[in-house]
Every structure is written in C-alpha cells, then in structure tokens.
C-alpha cells in the first residue's frame, strides 16, 4: 500500500499539472475537462471496509510526472511497415490518427481513464496499415522508475492487419501509474495485446482499457498482475460488428497486503459475436482481490456467444477473493455461460500427485501452475510464458 504521506491532490493542483503537460498531445482545454471528469466521476467501487483498505475515490499521488516524454518509452521488435512512436512524436506527425482513436474509445468515461487523459505526458502509438501482418511482437517498455506517470497506449489495426503488442511497465517501488490502453481492431484485423506487471508494496497501478473490434476482427487480451501494491483495472471490450471475436484472460496473484480490483466488461453490440473471458485469481498472505466480470448482450445481438469462467484459489487463511460474474442479456437466441469457483487446493489432488512420487511442495506447485495454465497460455511468446511461470513459482515458494 502507498504510505499516507501524500494527500489527495486538490483541483487546483491537478489543473496546474494539466496546464504544464504537453498541449500538442492534448489541448489544455481538453485536459482541464478530463481532470474535472476525474474529480467528479466515481470509481464505481464501494467505500473501504473491513477488508478493503483503500479509498479509490480519494487516492493520494503526485500529479506531476517526471518521466521524459521521448526517453520514457522504448520500442523493440521488427516493425516493417507498421508505425510505433512515442506519443509526443505521434502528436506532431499523426495527430489525425490520435484524434480518431481518442474519439472512438472515449476513455474519459472511466475515472482513471480521465486521469490518464488529463495528465498524459507520454505514451505510445502503434498503427498497422491495412492487410499488413507484423510478424514479430512489438514490445513497448515504459521506464517510469519511482515517479508518477500517466501513459496512454494507443493501438490502431486497420482492416486485415495483424499484430502482437506487449506492454511492459518498468516501475520502482513508490511509483504511481494511471495508464490507458486504447485499442481499435478494424474489420478482419487481429490483435494480441498483453501486459504483465508486478506492483510493489508502495506502488499504485491503475489502468483503463477499451478495445473495439470490428466485423470478423479478433482480439486476444491477456493480463497478469502480481505484487503487494494497489492494482486497479477497468477493461471494456466492445464487439461492434458481426463476426467480431474476443478472448480475454486475467491472471492475478496478489501477495503481502496487496489490493487488486479488476472489472472486465464485454459488450456484444452486434449479433454473431463471440467472447471468452477466463480469470484465474489466487491470493496469498493477507492480499485481497476483487473481480467483477460483466457480459452485456445488447438487443440486436442475436446469435452472440459469450462465456465467462472465473476461478479463485485461496492460498492462505487471511487472503480474500471476491468474484462477481454478471450477465445482462437483452436478446433471445444467444448463448451465455458463466461459472465461478472459489476454494483452496484440494487434499485429494495433493494425495494423488504424492502417490505418483511428487513431494508435497512439488504437488502444490504443480496444482497451482495448472490452475493458472490457461491464463499463462494466453500470453504471446514462449519467453513471456516461461517468465510468468517462473514468477508464479517464486511467488508461491
């Protein structure tokens, strides 16, 4: 948890931070409006209670970002004809693309999205032209250190384009990050978007993410969250036209006194759209995790097929996981499934593995890795999957 040395920033302080930020990325008037939206909109979360210790509507942080707009972001991977640029550069050279994504996504609808927008000083734009397949993953690395940062990640895949984008936040203890991910997948395009994060005890990571998927397009979204800090994600995916598909997965493994709160909403706007959401959450020590999964099938979305699978593993008696799946279906002729389990590792599973020669700690590790496997498998490269597996093993031991 962040220490209470800072008070929540006042409106004046937020507005002066917005006024200092780069007007080429976003006009000062728009920033001012976004900051006011941050202050006036609710986080949608309940107030602190016996378990949940943090008031998400009164977070304390330093609104001035010290991160260098150009050097704070690095790209690697072979781009070919795709464009990947720091947001400040993109604002000069591709302002229309930026404006278009901003308009389509409207990230300010989320409290922390409005914050990222209002104070955003750096970030990245990835733009893949029509029918171009970026064979190799594009890595975006944000070097944030122990500072505040408000990075926006904007991705536009034109019709028929394919790309894998992996975002890495390099933060030191004490960082405060309010990030946005704004993803447009046009018709027949395919995006694989992944981010894995460890948030230390004194750090805060907030993300608002919107993905919009067009006709016969598809998006695979994978997240993995570790650590003892505060992690909040608001994710919304919108399946805008027939044939659009979404696979999203989330792996949570908070430890220490970590607080993790994720909402994932899938909107089936058009018919014949498909979504799969898989969440695997485990909590250790006295960590707390909350997950709200929401499937919305709108009135004209006949033939939609949605599933939401949400499993939680309690590793210690003091850990706590709340999981709320919700379905809002305004249409007949759809398939919607949700299932949720919460529990500890089963003694019969442990005995079964021990009877095959594995000792108890190996048995527990095997079961826990198996539990997370579908969400590790959703990550795009073998190196990332191995690193995640390693991190799970380290966290559990």
């Amino acid at each position, binding site marked *: 948890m962040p220490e209470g040395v800072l008070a929540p920033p006042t409106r004046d302080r937020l507005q002066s931070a917005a006024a200092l930020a780069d007007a080429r990325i976003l006009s000062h008037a728009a920033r001012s409006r976004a900051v006011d939206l941050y202050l006036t909109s609710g986080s949608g979360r309940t107030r602190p209670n016996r378990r949940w210790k943090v008031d998400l509507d009164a977070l304390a942080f330093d609104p001035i970002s010290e991160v260098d707009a150009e050097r704070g972001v690095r790209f690697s991977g072979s781009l070919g004809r795709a464009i990947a640029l720091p947001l400040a550069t993109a604002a000069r050279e591709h302002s229309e693309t930026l404006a278009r994504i901003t308009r389509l996504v409207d990230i300010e609808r989320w409290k922390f999205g409005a914050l990222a927008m209002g104070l955003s000083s750096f970030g990245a734009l990835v733009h893949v032209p029509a029918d171009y397949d970026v064979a190799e993953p594009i890595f975006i690395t944000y070097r944030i250190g122990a500072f505040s940062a408000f990075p926006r990640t904007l991705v536009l895949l034109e019709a028929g384009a394919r790309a894998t984008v992996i975002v890495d936040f390099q933060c030191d203890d004490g960082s405060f990050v309010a990030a946005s991910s704004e993803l447009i997948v046009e018709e027949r395009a395919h995006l694989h978007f992944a981010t894995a994060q460890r948030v230390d005890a004194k750090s805060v990571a907030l993300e608002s993410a919107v993905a919009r998927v067009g006709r016969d397009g598809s998006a695979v979204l994978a997240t993995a969250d570790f650590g003892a800090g505060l992690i909040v994600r608001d994710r919304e995916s919108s399946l805008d036209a027939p044939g659009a598909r979404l696979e999203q997965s989330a792996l949570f493994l908070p430890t220490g006194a970590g607080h993790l709160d994720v909402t994932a909403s899938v909107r089936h706007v058009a018919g014949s759209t498909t979504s799969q959401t898989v969440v695997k959450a485990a909590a250790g020590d006295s960590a707390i995790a909350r997950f709200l999964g929401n499937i919305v099938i709108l009135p004209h979305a006949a033939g939609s097929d949605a599933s939401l699978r949400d499993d939680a593993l309690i590793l210690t008696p003091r850990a706590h996981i709340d999981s709320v799946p919700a379905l809002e279906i305004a249409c007949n002729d759809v398939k919607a499934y949700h299932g949720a389990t919460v529990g500890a590792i*089963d*003694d*019969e*599973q442990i*005995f*079964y*593995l*021990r*009877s*095959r*020669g*594995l*000792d*108890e700690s*190996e048995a527990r590790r*095997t*079961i826990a*890795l*198996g*539990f*997370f*496997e*579908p969400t590790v498998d959703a990550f795009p490269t073998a190196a990332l999957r191995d690193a995640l597996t390693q991190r799970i093993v380290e966290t559990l031991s």
Partner: protein
Amino acid sequence: MSETMGLRVAGLRATVENTEILRGIDLVVEPGKIHALMGPNGSGKSTLALSLAGHPHYQVTAGSATLDGTSLLDLTPEKRARAGLFLSFQYPAAIPGVKVANFLHAARQAVRPGSLAPAAFRAMLVEKMEILGMDPSFMGRYLNDGFSGGEKKRLEMLQMAMLAPKYAILDETDSGLDVDALRAVGDSISALRASDEGRQAGMLIITHYPRILKHVTPDVVHVMMDGRIVLTGAHDLAERIEREGYDGIRDEVGARA
C-alpha cells in the same frame, strides 16, 4: 525367494474418522504374482488400498506393511511410490491445467530418476498408449479433467505402465468399464508383465465383480468381508463367486452381516 521379498501385510488395522474398517489384514503378494482381492461393497477393500498408499485420512492403528523389506507405514505417500508401490485409483483426482505428458514425465522422474532420456520416454509413452488404445491427443489434455470414467481408468493404466512399479494395487479399475476398456486394462497388465521393468511386478487387483478376471488370470484369489480376509483360494474361487455371489461365502465363513 527371500522371506522379505513381496508386498507383505500383517495384522493391519486401520480406522477412518475413528471407525475401524480394517480389522487385521494378513496378505503376501510375491513378486510376479497376481492376486485378486474380492468382496462386497463396504468390506474395506478400498480402505486397504488407500492405507497402503498412505492416504492421510486413514489411520493405521496396528500391524505392518513392507515392500521388499522396506516398511511402508513410516513413509510419506511419495516415498512409498518411490519404493515401488503404485495405486490405480478408483476415483482419480482431476488436476486442470496439468498436461498428461508433462505429468507423466514428472512422475517418472520422481519414481525412477534419470532412468529414461526424453526421446526414450516419448517412445515408451507412444508404445504404451497404443497398447491401451489411447489417442495421441491424450498427451496434451489436462489430467483427468473432463475425462469419462473409461478414460480415467485408461490413464491410470498408462501411469502404471510408465512408472513400472514393483507392486501395483488396482482399486476397482474395472468398474464402469465397457468390454473394450476391460480388454485394454487386461492387455496393459499383460504388457507390463512382459516388459523388462515389469516382469517381476506383483499385482493386487481389487474388484467387486469377477469379469476382469476373464482378461487377467490371478494366481491367488482372496475374499474380504467386514475388514478381514475370510477366504483365500485359487482362480476357481472367483468362478464360485460368480456362480453363488458373496452370500454363500458369508454363510460358510460366518462373517457378520
């Protein structure tokens, strides 16, 4: 044959939640022999199997159990497996996310460390799966997760074949199987006993019904009732049970109803 060889159980008593289920079991399975342990439901057959494997819910209160001279009762379940004991579970646990091939490799490494190079392991796996009539796609499936009853039992037999134990206890491996699956189980036992590693394997086949014994011919048949072995005989004892059921034997031995 040395007097310590074999899976030797003497005077074994065990309780589950303070209720005594095993009331003095004496049993010797010698290397290379097949024993059938038959008996009605509730007679304690599965309790014997799970007690020998070291299930934590079963408390052994008296007696001994040794495997080729090694006392099993002081060992953890994994050390019993490493000593060469294998239990084919009546109800194997599902472990989602753990792929069959990876699990088999880990188990083989744990039980017989360093004994097979990866390529040899792979070849052995393919061969054993063919004997069991298992599709290669099994290797990538999650352990018992969404498996049918027959698939679970085939996977137990595959594990037995891959681990090549010195002594295997098959707890109702035949129950709920169709004729093809039964034959596959029989073939798997025969194949293990035909292999170099499994030639001397001793087997304790626990069954309610005699039909598995059409596919595997036991050297010795035991009948268990009320926590004791009440009758021991040759293969024809199983045929008698098929004809008469357990009631005739119960009357003969005077076991409590």
